[in-house]
């Protein structure tokens, strides 16, 4: 079963429809017991931000996310995986990243989705720059140690 899973990975400027992506994994099937959907949104950081600008490394971004998705499929009994990451300018409240995992069992779906997000944070070549409401284009968001710790706990 694991070998048949083909992760869907997309890196795009356009928005995505989380529900439609989840439906693609489950429709017509009766062997899936659990679907976990993670959606990452742009925060305005207490009203400070006008937008986030996401720079990415074209080509490598897709490859790296696909690599992480393949690792998840090898590690958990998944029946479907979708990962979509946007780039470009993203307004507060808008969607940045989507991960959907489908499995017979809830623990596998939860763990795989958590793993995918931890790894996307630390391995996928994206960088966020803040654009402030006062018109200045601000700092590059610094990587956090917490994200490294989160990724480190999977021990790969």
């Amino acid at each position: 079963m694991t070998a048949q899973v083909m992760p869907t990975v997309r890196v795009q400027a356009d928005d995505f429809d989380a529900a439609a992506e989840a439906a693609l994994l489950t429709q017509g099937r009766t062997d899936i017991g659990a679907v976990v959907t993670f959606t990452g949104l742009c925060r305005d950081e207490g009203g400070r931000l006008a937008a986030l600008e996401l720079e990415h490394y074209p080509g490598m971004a897709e490859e790296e996310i696909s690599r992480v998705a393949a690792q998840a499929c090898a590690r958990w009994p998944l029946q479907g995986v979708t990962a979509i990451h946007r780039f470009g300018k993203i307004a507060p409240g808008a969607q940045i990243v989507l991960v959907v995992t489908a499995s017979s069992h809830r623990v596998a779906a939860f763990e795989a989705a958590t793993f995918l997000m931890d790894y996307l944070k630390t391995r996928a070549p994206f960088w966020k720059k803040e654009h402030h409401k006062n018109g200045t284009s601000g700092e590059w968001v610094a990587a956090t140690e917490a994200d490294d710790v989160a990724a480190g706990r999977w021990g790969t």
Partner: protein
Amino acid sequence: MKAIYFAWVRERIGKTEEDISPPAQVRTAGELIAWLSAQGEEYAYAFENPSVIRVALDRAHVKHDAPLGEAREAAFFPPMTGG
């Protein structure tokens, strides 16, 4: 080989990418960073703290002691902040 820069590394160097020809004694990713640092003020600034610079050779992450081998594309960037 082609060098590509992202985020504040790109901004500090002032280029998105360029062709570079490091000498034969530059054999690892870390040595390539050191060599680039000596190519001008903007490079010295971009690479002033080499330990935070991440390197990808032909689109795969490598450590600083990784040999350049036959890589045709070397990318330099800060720690990723996607997701």
